[in-house]
């Protein structure tokens, strides 16, 4: 729902905005603070795909509700797993919203894409291969549910249930565009992104094996 994307959600005082950002950053940090065999490489991988996805989102911002982040979250969840997938979603949201527009809706967008990443981790991560059919199905479902979730940010004391339903109904064309755009990204970009992450992960594992041998030998 494009109207919720920074146009008409409630405005927050800077203190509240800071609090939301602190909560989100802390959550991402906690999700990433787990033992890692090659933390430097992992940080590099995660940073690069976060930067790439955030930049893509900013670049696509003039096109209403064309959201490459949804596809990226599905793939990241599938390839990086639940914890890092969710952290990825939060970081992309925070970073891109710093450029686009920050507000109450950031909380809904970050949590929404985090749920998308969780869905990717749950339903796409089978046998190390990205299941394109499931990816397309999930693109449809998660794009729609993400829009509805973010639309909750417009609710205030004066919003009735029928108001909200009418709001959702009016936004259906934007939802449809989000769905088609995510499917397009899934068809054209998801395999490459998935391969990039998998390749890097494989490389990390082989480097680690050499290192461990070295340690054993030393």
């Amino acid at each position, binding site marked *: 729902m494009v109207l919720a994307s920074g146009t*008409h959600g*409630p405005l927050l005082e800077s203190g509240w905005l800071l609090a939301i950002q602190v909560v989100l950053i802390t959550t991402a940090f906690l999700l990433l603070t787990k033992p890692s065999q090659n933390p430097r490489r992992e940080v590099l991988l995660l940073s690069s795909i976060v930067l790439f996805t955030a930049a893509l989102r900013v670049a696509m911002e003039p096109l*209403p*509700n064309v959201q490459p982040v949804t596809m990226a979250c599905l793939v990241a969840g599938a390839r990086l797993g639940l914890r890092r997938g969710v952290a990825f979603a939060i970081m992309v949201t925070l970073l891109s919203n710093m450029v686009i527009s920050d507000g109450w809706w950031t909380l809904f967008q970050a949590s929404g894409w985090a749920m998308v990443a969780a869905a990717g981790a749950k339903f796409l991560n089978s046998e190390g291969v990205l299941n394109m059919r499931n990816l*397309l199905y999930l693109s449809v479902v998660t794009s729609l549910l993400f829009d509805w979730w973010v639309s909750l940010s417009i609710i*205030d004391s004066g919003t009735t249930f029928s108001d909200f339903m*009418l709001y959702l109904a*009016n936004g259906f*064309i934007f939802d449809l565009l989000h769905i088609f755009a995510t*499917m397009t990204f899934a068809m054209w970009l998801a395999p490459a992104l998935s391969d990039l992450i998998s390749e890097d992960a494989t490389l990390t594992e082989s480097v680690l094996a050499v290192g461990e041998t070295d340690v054993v030998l030393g």
Partner: protein
Amino acid sequence: MRLVALTLALICFTSLVSAHSTVTDNWEKDLENGYISTAPLVTEHLVIVRTSGTWDGSGSPHVFAFDFSGEPVWQIENPHALHNDLSPLLLVTKGQGCGGTWQDMVIIAWADGKVQALDVATGTEQWSAQTEVDTWGITGSLALDGDLVVVPTRQGLSTYCLADGTLQQRVELNQLGWRNGVTVSDDAYLLGNEEGVLNTIYRNGTVISESIGDGKIRHAPLLTNAGILIHLQTKSASEIFINGELFLTAGPSPAMPVIYNNQVYLATSEDFIFLDCSLECENVGITPFHSNGEIAIQEFDDGEWKVWAPQNNPEGGWGVFTTTEDWMILQSPNDDYATAAPGFGSDGIYVLGNDKGILMFYTSQHNNSVISQGHEDLDYIFIITTLILLVSILASAPAFIFHLHEKLLKTLLPGVVIFMAFNITMISTAWSGYLSEQIEPEGDWDDSWSEEWKGSQVVVFELPEGQIVFGGLSGHKTVESLTDDAAFRVGILIEKETFDSGEWIKSINGHEGAGWEFKIDGERGLLGISEAEVTSDSVIRWYPA
């Protein structure tokens, strides 16, 4: 000595030239007194114009007279006038008859029911009369009938001697009128009203009433060779009747039609309409144009003429029509909503006034910028994105035939996304319009409001200092245009900001708060104000988020 004489001669010549140029120079004046919603009068030496007042207590309606160099000559105000001062000024040349003799006069009808005759040269009152008031008084155009001035009053008709204002005839009618001009025929006066009834008032006092239709007659009826023409304003459109028979259905909020050389010119919020009524009336053509106010004829020495109609939208300007194919929009440096026709003088002088209250005086030497209109501007984005969509459909056809689903989606989806993304405003507006048609709005009418506002557009501002309501508006198609108009009339300052989804109100009268939201007929607005559409009787309510 010769040098001195030559210098003096040069100085005299230069001053003569400059004196002459002050007469023919163009000028403009911000009258800072609300709208100019009726045509300025141009006499031999003066420009006379009326303003509506500001309605926020800072300025009551005025009539100003300027000379051709823009210097004020006289002005009067009516501190008791009410809203909707729409009655055009009437110029009367000197003469004699009922009551004696009279000089060149301008007759002013006010919304508080007062009729006032002023000496054109000095603005001195010659006589005045009072007519009845029901919420307001006179809003229609007056007419001359020999030595009488015919006044369409709020609920009737009065005629007065031009010389001294003696009441000659008074007829009470059953219906209330608004903007209901009167027409003088050979044996009667024709007058419409808010109930769609045409009253024919004979000079002996006999009244024949004929219901034209379910709507409002807000103009002076036209006498054509085919019969009496009425452009009836209905709830969401308008209907043109000739001799009581429906001739044509047209757009909403009709302008005040005119007839010249058996050609009838009409306008609505959607179209400018040409009828040829030489024998029977015939629809000559329709041109897309938005005009709801006065229409005027500019005559030329060679017998040709042009038709001017103010464009009543934010772009403003005046449409200048020769034929349905040959027309243009004349722009001014101060364009805004316009409802007043131009005033024309000799030597090509023309005077414009707009809803911003800016009066502009031009000579024929001046060239205003003009937008030629031959055809609608092409929407290149729509054309290009449609082509892209078609190409993607064609490219995906083989994949469809051979059941290659992945390839099908890969080629088809980018075209669909590009088409939708670049035409999202058009598509979502159509979708919202469809939804609105399915949902019956609950309405937002307040019984304490004036009955006169029923059927018109109303705007409510719920400001921290209290509620401000303004109604009786018409012709607006979007929330933005309606809000701007109402805010201007009540003197409220609106600050906007632009987002991808359109324009939104940032602050109203300096109150920013947590933002502003609006309801249309009780339903929360979901589109940007420039996209959200209103009907002819919508109530827009602005309230803090």
